[in-house]
């Protein structure tokens, strides 16, 4: 059982700290016991082996393409590790992956399988950009403008995701499918926004105005915007939320045994909507910081698939916030390094996508095999 093993480590402290009234010690012990099936060693070993296996397959594909895999991988590593540029680019690329990935991790812990991060990201970017480029608003002083834009984007993402959650609890609509349908609808909303709604009247192509004063400052000594610092700061917050807070306990408890939570008079519906709203808020935040930190304006090609790559990041990070942070940086490093290697060795640009997708498939396979070896489920 993929997700339950992943939840192992931070469930236990939450459960043993006696999570307030409504969940007696017996219940907490049961959850802890259930979660204790896999060890932390296996939990870390599986993603590491998955990465190694995916890189090995990737190496075969690179060799098939006529390049030396070792030189290509050496180029990837040196492009990331050499100089400020590699670090800065990696951190910048990791920012949306970590933010959206944390949201997925929280939702998947509760066994709410949303895959709609891409749509929430776009809606966040659209609403946030509309706000910071809006008439009257764009003349606000810098920080009020940035902060209000972030709030608008976060709320918009949360609402878009919360809608899928609400349709799930109110009508029983499968969240996997409804969250994905909302991606396509968000895509259309973006297309309308940049063509008409918030289009830059001066521009010949479909895009918003420049975000101007809402542009995010860079971290001192780097070319990375402060959105990266925000993403990193949210990692421990998410860890605390999942491990210690009652809400976090509810989330993991719901993931393990929805009916037990019912018996303890905690509403399942609340948990589902809560995790969907958190996931959407983080994706919406990713949308606006990518726009104000990197792109400078919203264009028709804003959908680049961070919302899907972040699924891989969340699973590779074992639905553990720190793991998501590491996985996000790793994925970003691979992407940034590959861009450089691709130029040098003339590789197909889609190869890196195959490698990252293989990683997640191998994680899934590894979990299944480990679960099978343990004899549970």
């Amino acid at each position, binding site marked *: 059982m993929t997700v339950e093993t992943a939840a192992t480590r931070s469930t236990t402290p939450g459960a043993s700290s006696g999570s307030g009234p409504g969940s007696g010690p017996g219940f907490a012990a049961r959850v802890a016991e259930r979660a204790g099936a896999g060890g932390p060693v296996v939990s870390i070993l599986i993603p590491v082996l998955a990465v190694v296996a995916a890189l090995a397959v990737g190496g075969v594909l690179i060799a098939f393409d006529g390049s030396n895999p070792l030189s290509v991988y050496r180029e990837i590593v040196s492009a990331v590790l050499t100089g400020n540029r590699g670090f800065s680019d990696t951190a910048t690329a990791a920012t949306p992956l970590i933010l959206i990935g944390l949201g997925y991790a929280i939702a998947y812990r509760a066994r709410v399988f949303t895959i709609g991060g891409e749509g929430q990201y776009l809606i966040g970017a659209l609403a946030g950009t509309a706000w910071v480029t809006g008439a009257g608003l764009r003349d606000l002083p810098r920080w009020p403008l940035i902060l209000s834009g972030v709030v608008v984007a976060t709320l918009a993402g949360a609402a878009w995701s919360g809608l899928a959650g609400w349709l799930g609890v109110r*009508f029983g609509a499968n969240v996997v499918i*409804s969250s*994905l*349908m*909302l991606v396509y609808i968000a*895509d259309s909303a973006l297309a309308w926004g940049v063509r008409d709604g918030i289009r830059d009247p001066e521009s010949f192509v479909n895009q918003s105005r420049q975000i101007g004063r809402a542009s995010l400052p860079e971290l001192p000594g780097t070319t990375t915007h402060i959105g990266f610092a925000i993403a990193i700061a949210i990692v421990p917050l998410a860890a605390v939320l999942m491990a210690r807070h009652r809400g976090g306990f509810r989330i993991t408890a719901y993931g393990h045994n929805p009916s037990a939570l019912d018996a303890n008079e905690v509403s399942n519906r609340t948990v589902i909507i809560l995790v969907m709203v958190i996931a959407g808020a983080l994706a919406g935040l990713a949308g606006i910081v990518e726009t104000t930190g990197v792109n400078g304006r919203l264009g028709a090609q804003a959908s680049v698939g961070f919302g899907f790559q972040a699924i891989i990041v969340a699973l590779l990070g074992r639905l553990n916030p720190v793991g998501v942070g590491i996985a996000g940086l790793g994925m970003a490093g691979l992407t940034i390094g590959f861009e450089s290697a691709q130029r040098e060795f003339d590789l*197909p640009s889609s190869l890196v996508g195959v490698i990252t997708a293989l990683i997640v498939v191998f994680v899934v396979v590894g979990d299944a095999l480990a679960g*099978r070896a343990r004899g549970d489920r």
Partner: protein
Amino acid sequence: MDVIFKLATLEAAIRLGVPVALAALGALVSERTGVLNLGLEGMMLSGALGGYAANEATGSAWLGVLAGTLIGAGCGAILALLVVTARANQVVTGIAFTLLALSATTYLFQLRYSIGGIPPRVNRLDMTPLVLLTLACVAALWFLFNRTTLGLAMGAVGEAPEAADALGYKVERLRWIATMIGGGLAGLGGAALVCGPLGLFIENVTAGRGWVALALVVFAGWKPGAAVAGAILFGLCDAVQLRLQGTATDVPYEAFLALPYVVTLVALVLRARASRTPAALGVPYVRGM
């Protein structure tokens, strides 16, 4: 509204609906035995690329359709190995499979065709044989589930695997068969898309139709005929959307782009509670639990 009733629109509705209908039938077969196939989009896409490549290599659109079906069935076998035999989480595995298929088809396509320039158009099939093929699949599935021991056993495995096992039916084997048939139908749907009137493969050519098909199965209450009707409804929205894009209206054309997905979402919402989900859907089966 009269755009809906034009013959050309209805024709387009069927053309756009048939691939989705085939994929929905595929999802339905495996779901009836309790296997939720969220890799459907990826299987459709794999079948589409396989069908295109075989069509281009042999010059025969029918061989393309056959190749797409076989590749889809192969994808189904991979999924069955993971979720039935190894009992991996069905939701996560399906999503992972689709992500892999999306990048792998893009990679293979780029490898084969981008270097030499524009990918060629391939031989195209008329809609008539494809429609007949779809109807034959509906009839076959109806017959399977209502008139054969195999089909009834499949249904039993999806509703009460313990009971089916106690009666001597092989739960894992039946789920394997259903997942492979389902994958084959999804691959057929993908191949029908590219070897049909389109005659072309492009990156992510299925554009979410596999996911739409999954929603339609819920809408259809796991009934083959209703699933096809739902797919034609989706095709109709898609056709109307394509037609209205060209005409000047007060409504922005992007609203029409979103229309098929909005309708799918609404259909999912309206029918989610009313339709009877197979009781063991998504639950791996372990003997003696």
